[in-house]
């Protein structure tokens, strides 16, 4: 492995001298950036759900499918999506097979499953319900718990940046609401599932999670599809707000199978005073996926660990924008992602550290490591740093790797065949992150997915090795 970048942005990068408002000033690698943090108030702002839907519908109807272009080497285009042919369809019968096959059997606090546009199953531990935990569809929550939901809904999410974001805000149905009240601590995970069972589906997924003061809980989201032929769309919007001292471990496992599933989603996690979030998305495939993932420390004393792994194959296209946002200080951040690619897949990881004016005494670090398993696969890592405070430390680093032939030979001399040795290397590459999940059931699901992808890419990897 060779280090490709290691840069520091500290006081030297900060702007402003106190006389004028501090301007956000570009960090050293900012020129390559394609995306911007949400970093501000969302669309909610006292408007009712109906008003928001109506405003979003206008944007949806008046805009084209988006194309995102970074100069020369990166384009994420939704133009091959035949949106008119898709519909927010009704679900099939019961819990989809793909959900039964994939989810672990371990203990859980609750589980809610939405297939296509309908919630098909909700379970919640009755003991937790008694303590005030709410797990239901978001539509139901708007009816039954309006006073709780309305102030938070779309508080930080926007509705008009592009057509599919607007489509989500205008057209979402059912959706998921989870509320863990103040002081409730529960080790077993809440499982949120979005499934697509057949082509032709447009799934507008909407999730709102509230963690009350001092609450402690886990959320595992699964985004799954059957292997089918044809197009489907998942346009998701997820928001989570953690109040004072709340602690959440949030994991997201995404595997859209072999169908042409487009996924354009935005996720925002707001960390309150002295609250903590450990967030790990495992992005394991989809025809074309664009994820805007923003983890914001919004009040003093908050901190976060932002982990992630991605693994693309065949012709998949994955575009990740991960934001480590610090709105106040003191705050802590630690971003660590790893990615591997096989086939002719393309992945881009843009990681942004943004430290707003006044977020003094923020300390954060961003690292991204990649491993190429095929000559035609490509992963681009674009770290950037925007610092507008002068008493902070923010830096980033990363490595680019290929399979280490010496390590393969070493393991072969111990009796492992080549394919097994490759598996050991790639699994070992991801293992530090997987082990951090701290939930055996989910860890095993992720390990199983990684192993299955490697098995599927076996010939590809073999050809790569012999070509060098």
């Amino acid at each position, binding site marked *: 492995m060779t280090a490709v970048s290691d840069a520091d942005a500290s006081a030297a990068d900060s702007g402003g001298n106190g006389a004028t408002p501090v301007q956000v000033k570009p960090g050293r690698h900012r020129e390559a950036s394609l995306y911007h943090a949400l970093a501000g108030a969302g669309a909610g702002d006292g408007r009712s759900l109906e008003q928001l839907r109506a405003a979003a519908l206008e944007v949806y109807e008046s805009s084209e499918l988006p194309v995102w272009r970074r100069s020369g080497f990166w384009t994420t285009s939704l133009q091959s999506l035949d949106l008119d042919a898709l519909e927010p369809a009704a679900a099939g019968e019961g819990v989809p097979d793909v959900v039964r096959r994939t989810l672990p059997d371990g203990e859980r606090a609750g589980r809610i499953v939405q297939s296509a546009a309908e919630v098909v199953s909700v379970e919640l531990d009755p003991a937790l319900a008694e303590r005030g935990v709410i797990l239901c569809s978001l539509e139901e929550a708007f009816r039954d718990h309006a006073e709780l939901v309305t102030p938070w809904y779309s508080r930080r999410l926007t509705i008009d940046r592009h057509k599919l974001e607007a489509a989500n805000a205008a057209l979402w149905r059912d959706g998921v609401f989870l509320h863990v009240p103040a002081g409730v601590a529960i080790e077993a995970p809440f499982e949120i599932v979005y499934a697509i069972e057949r082509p032709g589906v447009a799934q507008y997924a909407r999730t709102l999670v509230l963690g009350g003061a001092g609450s402690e809980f886990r959320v595992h989201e699964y985004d799954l599809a059957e292997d089918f032929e044809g197009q489907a769309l998942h346009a998701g919007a997820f928001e989570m707000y953690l109040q004072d001292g709340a602690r959440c471990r949030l994991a997201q496992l995404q595997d859209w199978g072999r169908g042409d599933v487009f996924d354009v989603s935005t996720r925002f996690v707001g960390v309150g005073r002295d609250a903590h979030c450990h967030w790990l998305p495992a992005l394991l495939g989809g025809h074309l996926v664009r994820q805007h993932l923003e983890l914001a420390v919004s009040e003093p004393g908050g901190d976060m660990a932002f982990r992630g792994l991605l693994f693309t194959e065949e012709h998949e296209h994955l575009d990740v924008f991960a934001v480590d946002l610090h709105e106040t200080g003191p705050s802590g951040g630690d971003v660590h992602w790893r990615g591997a690619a096989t086939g002719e897949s393309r992945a881009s990881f843009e990681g942004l550290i943004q430290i707003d004016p006044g977020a003094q005494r923020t300390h954060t670090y961003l690292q991204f490591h990649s491993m190429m398993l095929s000559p035609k696969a490509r992963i681009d890592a674009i770290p950037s740093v925007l610092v507008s405070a002068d008493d902070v430390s923010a830096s980033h680093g990363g490595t680019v790797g290929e399979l*280490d*032939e*010496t*390590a393969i*030979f*070493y*393991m*072969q*001399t*111990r*009796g*492992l*065949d*080549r394919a*097994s040795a490759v598996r*050991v*290397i790639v*699994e*070992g*590459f*991801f*293992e*530090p992150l997987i082990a951090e999940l701290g939930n055996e059931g989910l860890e095993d699901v992720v390990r199983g997915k990684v192993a299955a992808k490697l098995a599927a890419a076996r010939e590809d990897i073999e050809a790569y090795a012999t070509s060098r």
Partner: protein
Amino acid sequence: MAAPLFEIENLHVRPVAEARGKQVGEILKGVDLTIGAGEVHALMGPNGSGKSTLANTLMGHPSYEITQGTILFKGEDITEQEPHERAKAGLFLAFQYPVSIPGVSVANFLRMAINAKREEPIQVKEFRMQLQHAIELLDVDRSFTSRHLNDGFSGGEKKRAEILQMAMLAPDVAILDETDSGLDIDALRTVAEGVQRLHDEQGLGALIITHYQRILHYVKPEFVHILMDGRIVLEGGVELVERLEREGYDQIRQEVGAGTSAVGAGDSGV
């Protein structure tokens, strides 16, 4: 002499040429070596004589090409076999520079390696017992086995991990490629005594490749071979080690007439 277990006949080896149109000469120019079951051999030679090339070639390293000769193991021609097939047959190579495998614990790696040699996976209990035995034999800490293999290990720890793997995999012949290099005297003693015990207890055969004599104070070879410029130029018993210690490689080089320059001149004249 025990029945030949491992026979190397007239082995010629050159590195697989980088695609630069460079003429690459042979590193090994006809090596003959026979190791019987349970025998301990030492292969000594100065830097650049081809010792590591021989070790890697015997194990099937893809960077080396055998241009002539054969390698027989248990009567079978393994010249073209993949490294893992040789390992399964009962060969082992302890590396001069063991490679770190992040994310995989020593214990898990050992289990995988053991299972690779078996039809049925090893029982948990049996594995634990074997591991415990090996740990005691090699005087390593229990916590050692839960660390990631060679990741962040000191030089001494890496070599101990090599011997631990050797003990667990119980090969018929272990090739130790300069296992003594870079070790302090305590680590050297542990490693060497580990090898000696495996020889005594499990009948391990060994080819100890070394530049120096010091490891041979702890593991007593029955046969000693001196490799110079790609050929074995002198063979004998343990007395050769003592002679080397007294006289050095230069004296022997003059005596056998295998000077680098002479061979080099001969080659280029062809």
